[in-house]
């Protein structure tokens, strides 16, 4: 039973070991097959666990798998090595392994012929295993291990094509920015230990419940610190800058890690720690507002991007803002619901975008088409007829993202805004604007990519991708279209299922007013985008219609100047401090100390070296001298007493 419960982690580990050690001699097909099958096996076990848990009475669904291994025993700190299988974690496991499995299959086609094919799948499997550790952990510390491991995988995969300096820099940026969040997270963990003396979820939550204090300073501090970790990992203001750059990685990576799974770790963590957050309403307000602002800012920036993946990246930032806001509003079910739906449609969109890019590159480098950026939407146009399957699934994903009923995004977003309306009008307003932006940029993208005429030779010669890529797209499209029915307003299947893990859930009735308003907003925005962009780009070089907003356009285009702000303030200050340390402190202080010690030792030993003359007899003489002195000491002390 224990082995079965942890086998979802073991399968990808096995796959990565096989591929890492024997991959050199295996064909690409075999490597891809092993990696994919391992993840699918993991998915199968997760599904089994899910179903089995569903068959159990509600109270017993929290299954703690204690492996009986005392992982860390140091002083008062005692952390067991255990896993937690409950509705929340099984749901996450299904998302991670399900979407992950599809993306593995897709990658077999997408990465075909890459020089580091083997390494890519080793990393992917490592990521799946790490993510599962994160979601299955039964203590903050083990969760942190998974947290760091997925961060490592993210770094490795963003910089996967590291021979291009920009990609390597993007990986480094993601790593460094994430560290800032991780510092908060680990400080939060330390504070939890200092406060409660334990790190297991059950232990901590039990004590928090027992305290039954509202807004106690310690818990506010803990939750804020944990939120800093979530801000880093889930790309919230002000640390979202790494996520758009992370698009430097291969597109399947963007879909899996930077849209569907890893970036949602922050939301998952807050949901997991909902007991703490519920006890700290002050933090919840901060979380909700940060999330709503992020949703607005990310959406606004996405409006102005030309890179097909950048648009989706900022969209992801925005959607993560929705989820964080939901978590801040206490609507954890809505948050997880949107997380799952977002995983489907954003993975779908990314993979479809990858398919588009693939199609754009189809012309190959032979015709000198190399100079054309295959990711720039201005270079596309009219792909509707060239790549019909991709077009259809893209439209489904886009409608789901825009929140058009009955696609999945509509239901999950609806639940969030309903919660916002009830708790915090400000957040509601921000989210409403963000939703409009969403529909706008989605419409803009659809028009620029698929409608009109082909603007370049690459677009002219684009061709549909192979079945190994399109089949996962179709599967995802089905989910993106229909998964919303999992948690219909007033029924709340998913919510009821999650209730034991997230502390209770009452399904909201469908509020016709809100739902209708948001549907109208979305449709209106899509129509607006169609009108504005239908004829905007005759040639690739044409100016964007939004440029007539001048300064505001530039402001959005440069992502609110946040990167520039970091560059000019933080980085410059850091350089100045480093240069002071390097030129003055290191040379004078550290080197002086080290060299001084070395010189002292050298001179002393130089003097002592004369004793070691290589003559056994003189060594013996010294020993005898020692013996005589020691015996004399004993005689003297015996005489004294």
């Amino acid at each position, binding site marked *: 039973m224990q082995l079965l419960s942890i086998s979802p982690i073991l399968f990808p580990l096995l796959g990565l070991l096989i591929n890492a050690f024997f991959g050199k001699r295996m064909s690409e097909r075999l490597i891809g097959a092993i990696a994919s099958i391992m993840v699918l096996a993991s998915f199968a076990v997760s599904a089994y666990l899910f179903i089995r848990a569903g068959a159990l009475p509600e109270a017993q669904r929290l299954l703690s798998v204690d492996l009986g291994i005392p992982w860390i025993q140091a002083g008062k700190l005692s952390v067991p090595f255990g896993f937690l299988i409950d509705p929340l974690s099984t749901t996450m496991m299904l998302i991670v392994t399900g979407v992950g499995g599809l993306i593995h299959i897709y990658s077999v086609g997408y990465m075909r012929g890459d020089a580091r094919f083997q390494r890519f799948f080793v990393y992917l499997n490592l990521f799946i295993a790490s993510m599962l550790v994160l979601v299955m952990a039964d203590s903050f510390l083990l969760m942190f291990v998974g947290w760091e491991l997925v961060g490592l995988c993210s770094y490795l995969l963003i910089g996967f094509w590291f021979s291009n300096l920009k990609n390597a820099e993007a990986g480094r940026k993601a790593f460094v920015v994430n560290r800032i969040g991780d510092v908060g997270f680990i400080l939060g963990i330390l504070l939890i230990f200092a406060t409660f003396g334990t790190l297991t979820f059950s232990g901590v939550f039990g004590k928090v419940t027992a305290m039954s204090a509202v807004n106690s300073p310690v818990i506010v501090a803990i939750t804020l610190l944990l939120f800093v970790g979530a801000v880093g990992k889930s790309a919230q203001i002000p640390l979202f800058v790494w996520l758009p750059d992370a698009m430097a990685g291969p597109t399947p990576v963007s879909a899996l890690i930077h849209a569907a799974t890893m970036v949602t770790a922050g939301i998952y963590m807050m949901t997991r720690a909902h007991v703490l957050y519920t006890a700290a309403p002050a933090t919840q307000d901060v979380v909700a507002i940060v999330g709503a602002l992020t949703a607005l800012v990310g959406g606004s920036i996405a409006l102005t991007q030309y890179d097909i993946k950048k648009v989706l990246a900022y969209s992801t930032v925005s959607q993560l803002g929705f989820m964080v806001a939901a978590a801040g509003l206490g609507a954890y079910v809505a948050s997880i619901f949107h997380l799952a739906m977002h995983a489907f449609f954003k993975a779908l969109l990314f993979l479809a975008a990858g398919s588009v890019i693939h199609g754009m590159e189809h012309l190959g480098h032979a015709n000198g088409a190399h100079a054309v950026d295959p990711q720039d939407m201005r270079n596309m146009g009219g792909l509707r007829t060239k790549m019909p399957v991709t077009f259809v699934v893209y439209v489904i994903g886009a409608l789901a993202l825009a929140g058009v009923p009955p696609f999945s995004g509509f239901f999950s977003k609806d639940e969030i805004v309903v919660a916002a309306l009830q708790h915090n009008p400000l957040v509601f307003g921000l989210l409403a604007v963000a939703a409009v932006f969403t529909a706008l940029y989605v419409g803009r993208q659809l028009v620029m990519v698929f409608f009109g005429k082909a603007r370049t030779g690459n677009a002219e010669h684009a061709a549909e991708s192979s079945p190994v890529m399109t089949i996962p797209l179709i599967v995802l499209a089905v989910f993106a279209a229909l998964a919303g029915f999992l948690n219909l307003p007033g029924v709340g299947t998913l919510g009821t299922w999650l209730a034991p893990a997230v502390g209770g859930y009452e399904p909201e009735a469908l509020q016709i007013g809100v739902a209708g308003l948001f549907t109208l907003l979305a449709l209106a925005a899509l129509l607006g985008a169609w009108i504005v962009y239908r004829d905007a780009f005759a040639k690739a070089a044409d100016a964007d219609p939004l440029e007539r907003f001048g300064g505001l356009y530039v402001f959005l285009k440069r992502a609110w100047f946040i990167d520039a702000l970091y560059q000019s303030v933080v980085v410059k200050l850091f350089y100045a401090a480093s240069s002071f340390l390097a030129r003055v402190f290191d040379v004078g202080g550290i080197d002086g100390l080290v060299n001084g010690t070395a010189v002292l030792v050298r001179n002393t030993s130089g003097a002592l070296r004369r004793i070691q003359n290589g*003559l056994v*007899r*003189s060594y013996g*003489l010294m020993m*005898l*001298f020692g*013996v*005589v002195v020691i*015996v*004399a000491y004993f*005689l003297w002390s015996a005489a004294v007493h």
Partner: protein
Amino acid sequence: MTFDLFVFIGLALIGILAAIGLLTSRSAIYAALFLILNFSTVAVLYLMLNAPFLAVIQVSVYAGAIMVLFLFVIMLLGAERLAGPEAKTGLLWQRPLAVGLGALLLLQAGYVLITRFGQTAVSTTVVKSGPLDIGLMLFGPYLLPFEVTSVLLLVAIVGAVVLTRNK
């Protein structure tokens, strides 16, 4: 002066003179012979100390095996002539210092012994120390050390064979 004391003084003198001979002899063969003489006198002393088994073992192990090995190696290497003049290692101060320190050590030991001379009488219970009694001790309380010693000897044999093997 009892007969025992008389014999002891005689043997002690022989032993000490043999030891001094070992220190001063110019030839390694003579040194070895002096050492054999010393061992033999010690064997007789063992007899006086109610240790006949050890006395015989002393003769057969030290005189019969170890010293034969020494002689064998000395003759094999032709190293019996010892270096005459002091080598140019500049350790002229070493010898007097060694002798002085040795004398100091002896003084310390002598001080202890003389201040306590004869204070503890010999136990009146005479233990049997024949081969049977020694064997019972060896295979009783001292079984583990005994077995460890056998391992040690085995290792020494292997070591000696490996060291001197011609490659």
